[in-house]
Structures are given as C-alpha cells and as structure tokens.
C-alpha cells in the first residue's frame, strides 16, 4: 500500500499515465530532434523553436477548419494532411529565416540566441495578428477520440497511439536521412569539419539552410501533436524551448538514442508525477532534477568519454 492505493491500482495508474504521457513524449522528442539537428549542425540554439512548433499547431487548426467547412466528407482524414502542411510551412519559414538572418551569425552563438529570441517575439505578435490572441482547440475526427480497453482498469487513447506511430516514423526517417543517405553524409561532413567539407565541393550554405528548415519542419510536426494535449495560443510555444533544450542536453547533444531515452524518461516521469501532485509541482520536480543532474554531469546522461 502506498498513499492509499493498492499495488494493482498503482500498476494501472502507471500504465495509464504512461500512455497518457505518450503524446507529451512525442512532442518532446520531435521538438528535441529538430533542436538537436540544428544545434549539432550549426552550434546555435534556435530560441524561436517553440514558435515554429506553434506554427505547426496553427496549421493543424487551419486544416481542421478548412476540412470541416469545405470537405466535411473527408474530415476523418484531415489529420494526415495537417501533418504534412505543418511540416512544410514551418520548414519553409525556417529556411527563409536561415537565409535572411542566421547565416550572418555563425560563430556568434550567444548573439544567435538573442536574435532568435527577437524573432520569437515577432512571430508571437504575428500569430496574434493573424490567428487572434484567443486560445484555439482542434476538433478531432470521431475515430481518433476513443480509446481501447486493454483490461478493466486500463484504457489507451487512440490519438496517443496515432501520434506515437507518427513520431516513430519521423524519428526513423530522420535517422535514415542523416545516417543512410547521401545528403546525410554531407550534413555530417559539414558538422565535423565545415572548412574541409566546403573544400571538397559540398555546398555548405545549402546544407545549412536545408538542415535548419528540416529542424523547423519537425518542430512543426511536434505542433500537430501538441494540439492534442494543449490549446494553441500565440505564446504557448515559449515555455517549450527550455524543456526541449533540457531534453537535448540530458540525452547528450550528439546522440539520437540518448535524445529518445531522455525525452521518454522526462515525459513519463512528469506524466506519472502529475497524477499524484499538482501539475506545476510535477513540472518543478522534473525540471529541477534534470537541471541538478546536468549541473553534476553537463555532458548529459548518455555520452561516452570523448577526446577534447
């Protein structure tokens, strides 16, 4: 017995909160992937990353509106279209941002931090003007709202499974793109030695732009997943940049499996704690533990000793 729950109760709670945490896990993982790709490639932190996520969320919202207004028959499938749109639009915006601003700031990582923060403020204001200051929520098609029963006390939401599946596909795609494709080889070459990669004929500027766009696009997809756990508002993305950076750092910036493990442990711990404590205390405890661990072990939890 613990706090008045029996062990079988506790078991059910763990499993259900675990599945409830799946969407949070997806959002964290996708956000972290995007941030880590950009950080690994260019050594800059994109502080507007949360705003790119929210752009994806707005795109999903707009898709749901368009479908229910003009193609109600196809509404049950809109989410898949929304995923694509919420990848492409933030991706393009990201490429435009890289071209117009970021490329002038390489080698000044702290200044990039401040400049992209400025961009995030401007984006927030733009969302407020375009989509309104009000929070908006997305309607899900019928079939995604239900849940399946594993046992009497355990239910799993279907949208969680869908989002989870989408996240796995994208993560696998990123892995294949980075580690199994010719383009990925170029990206990694630039990552390791920019000057040399340029010298052997890789168009480093193009690689930078594509990578930045890819990172922002993935953040946009995270936004599509986000619509299921939170309401979309102009400033909703702002807090996610810190959480996301912690996920990336906790996993060790260079490692894909590390990022997955870290997104999983952080989202699950938080989701399970939220059942027992208030949401804000769960958040405080998780963030604080991560920060303390990072203070003691700044290279993250999942990295090997490397030559400096």
């Amino acid at each position, binding site marked *: 017995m613990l706090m008045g729950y029996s062990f079988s109760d506790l078991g059910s709670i763990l499993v259900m909160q675990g599945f409830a945490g799946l969407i949070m896990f997806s959002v964290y993982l996708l956000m972290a992937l995007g941030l880590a790709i950009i950080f690994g490639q260019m050594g800059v*932190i994109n502080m507007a990353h949360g705003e790119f996520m929210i752009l994806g969320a707005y795109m999903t919202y707009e898709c749901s509106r368009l479908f229910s207004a003009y193609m109600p028959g196809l509404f049950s499938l809109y989410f898949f279209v929304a995923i694509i749109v919420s990848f492409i639009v933030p991706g393009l915006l990201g490429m435009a941002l890289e071209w117009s601003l970021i490329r002038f700031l390489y080698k000044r990582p702290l200044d990039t931090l401040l400049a992209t*923060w400025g961009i995030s403020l401007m984006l927030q204001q733009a969302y407020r003007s375009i989509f309104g200051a009000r929070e908006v929520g997305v309607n899900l098609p019928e079939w995604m709202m239900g849940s399946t029963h594993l046992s009497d006390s355990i239910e799993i939401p279907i949208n969680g499974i869908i989002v989870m599946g989408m996240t796995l596909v994208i993560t696998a795609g990123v892995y294949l793109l980075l580690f199994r494709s010719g383009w990925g080889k170029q990206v990694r070459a630039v990552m390791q030695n920019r000057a040399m990669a340029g010298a052997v004929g890789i168009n480093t500027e193009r690689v930078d732009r594509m990578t930045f766009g890819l990172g922002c696009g993935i953040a946009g997809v995270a936004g599509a997943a986000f619509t299921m756990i939170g309401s979309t508002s102009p400033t909703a993305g702002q807090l996610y940049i810190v959480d996301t950076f912690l996920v990336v750092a906790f996993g060790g910036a260079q490692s894909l499996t590390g990022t997955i493990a870290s997104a999983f442990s952080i989202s699950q711990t938080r989701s399970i704690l939220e059942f027992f404590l208030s949401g804000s205390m769960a958040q405080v405890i998780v963030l604080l533990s991560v920060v303390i661990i990072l*203070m003691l072990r700044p290279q993250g939890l999942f990295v090997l000793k490397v030559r400096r």
Partner: protein
Amino acid sequence: MKSLLRDRKTALFVLVLVAILAVILPLVLEPFRLNLVGKYLTYAFVALGLVLCWGDAGILSLGQGIFFGLGGYCMAMFLKLQASTPEATKIQSTPGIPDFMDWNQITTLPWFWQPFHSLAFSIVAVAAVPMLLALIIGLSMFKRRVGGTYFAIITQAIASILTILIIGQQGYTGGVNGITDLRTLNGWDIRTDHAKLILYFVTIALLLVCLGGAHFIRCSKLGRILVAMREREDRVRFSGYDVASFKTFVFCFAAAMAGIGGAMFTLQVGFMSPSFVGIVPSIEMVIYCAVGGRTSLLGVIYGTLLVNWARTSFSETMPQVWMFAMGALFVFIVVVLPGGLASLYRTYLDPYISRLLGSSSKAPVHAGREADHANG
C-alpha cells in the same frame, strides 16, 4: 597624460549622469513619471552586472530575473510582515500573518518567513540570498567548464523553475499576484509622493555606489582577467588563475547588484510578483544591456532608461506594436549594432569630446579602448 584625460572624462560623464538623474528629471517630471524612472533605474542594477558578466567575461546569464526577484522578494517579505500586524489583520481567521497565507488556510508563519521580521536581516538578505544562489549555480557549472549557450539556457531553466514554484506555492509566496499591499518601512509610509521622491534619490545613490564598485573592478587587474578569460580561457588557466572562481565571483557580484535593484523596485513600486522573475523579464534585462552597449557601464544605464521609456510610451499608445518592436530591436542590435549605443558614441561623439577636453595629441588608435574605460 592619457590617464589624466581619462579620469577627467570619466568624472565629466558621471557628473552629466548625476545632473540628468538627480537634477533635471526631478525638476521636469511629475511625481508619477519620476517614480517610473526610479523603477526603470532598478533594472539598471541588473544591466551593470551584465556588463561585467556578459560584456567583459562573456558569460551570458538569461536568469538575472532570478536574482532581481529574490532581492525584491526579500524586501517584500519584510514589508509584508510590517503590514501584517495583529491589529491590521484582525479580521483574518489567523491574525498576524500575511493575508494571502490566511486565504490559503495557513495558520502559522512558515520558518523561512520568521527572520524577515528583522530589518537588518532583510537588508543583508537582499544581497546575500541572490549571491548564495549564484554561488551554488556558479560553482557547480563553472567548475565543470560549462559556459556559452549551455550556461545561458540552464540559467533560463532555473528562472522558469523558480517562477513555476512561486506561482504554485501560493500560500507561502502570494502566488501569481505576488506580495502586494506593502505599506511601511519601519513605520515610514512608503506610499506617499514624498517617500517616493526620497526612495528615488536612494536608488540613484545606490546605483552610483554599484557603478563605482563595477568601475573599480573593471579598472583592476581582475577586470582585465575577465576580458582575457572571454578571449582565451585556456591561456588564463595556464597563467595560473583559477578561471572558475573568477567567473563565480563576477556572477555573484552581478547577482548581488541585481538583488539590490530588486529591493529598490519593491520599495518604489509597492509590490513584488513572479512576473519580474521569469524567462521573459530576464531576457529583457539582457536587451537593456545590449542596447546600451554591453561593455559600457554608463551606456547600459542609458540603454535601460531608453528601452523602458519606449516600452511605456508604446504600451500607452499602441500596445500591439510593442512586442514586434521589441523583437525587431533584439535582431537589430545583435546583427547591426552589437556594441549598442556606446559604440555609436565611440565612433561619432568621442573624438569630438576628446578634442573639446583639450587633448588633440594622442592617437585615435586607442580611441575605442580609451572610451571603453572612460565610459566606466
């Protein structure tokens, strides 16, 4: 000869600042506006610390709001206890404790509130509590060679955690409203126009003390070590200096100044709330510093005043434009004018002023660095 000119110029600049703040503004501004200026100036304490931390040593903290807030809360806790005498709170179910505690069904004063009955303790705590936290953060991060963007975001995370904590623990902290309804400082009513005028001058005096302290550090060898660390950390280390303790020192110094600023904020504005602690205020304090010029002590004071003045006028007339303007300001300063207003001054005004002060001989080769020192 050169240093003589420098001293003369420094003295002149400080005199101009004092004249503007202590004479001109009180004469031309109505009490409400002057109180606003006093409020802005409390942010300048943070900006001064950022000059040493970020401008000189290259350590960007995105969590200065933490220290500003802690200083402010320390002062607010003292003032709140003063305002919560058993007589003043006799309608509460537990008289003698702050009203928000009573609303949250708390019946005894928590232990960490107890020492704030003492004014002396509270005044020490205003600087000491932020310093202590900075010491812990600094030692644990700098000893492990954490810096750059990583340090920046960890400090931001701490700011975010502290805000969530303050908001969540309503019964102990006053929650999202903060600690409000502050009245007297040891029996002296801080809400009258007269009291606000006096507090305004106290703020200026403290700001000048901090300016002097920061100037002293920058003129000492420690100041040069900070700059050296920014450029070649390894070389400093292999010249026999313990880099981590120098970084921790300057971080703590900046934290203490931010705490003093926060306390003066509480006194002048009459409340303290989590909205001055979190991510957004913290990063805005960095932009005050950047606009003024991150390596110029006097520059950042003007920068702080200017940005805040612009914010107030914008939000009075067209609030929706302000966020956009603020964002654009970040981008513009970083990309086009990394040296801030001070760099404009150095390029266009300084040669002229140097001539005016009667030194046409020595070279403009060192003009930039000269002004650097002259500006503080």
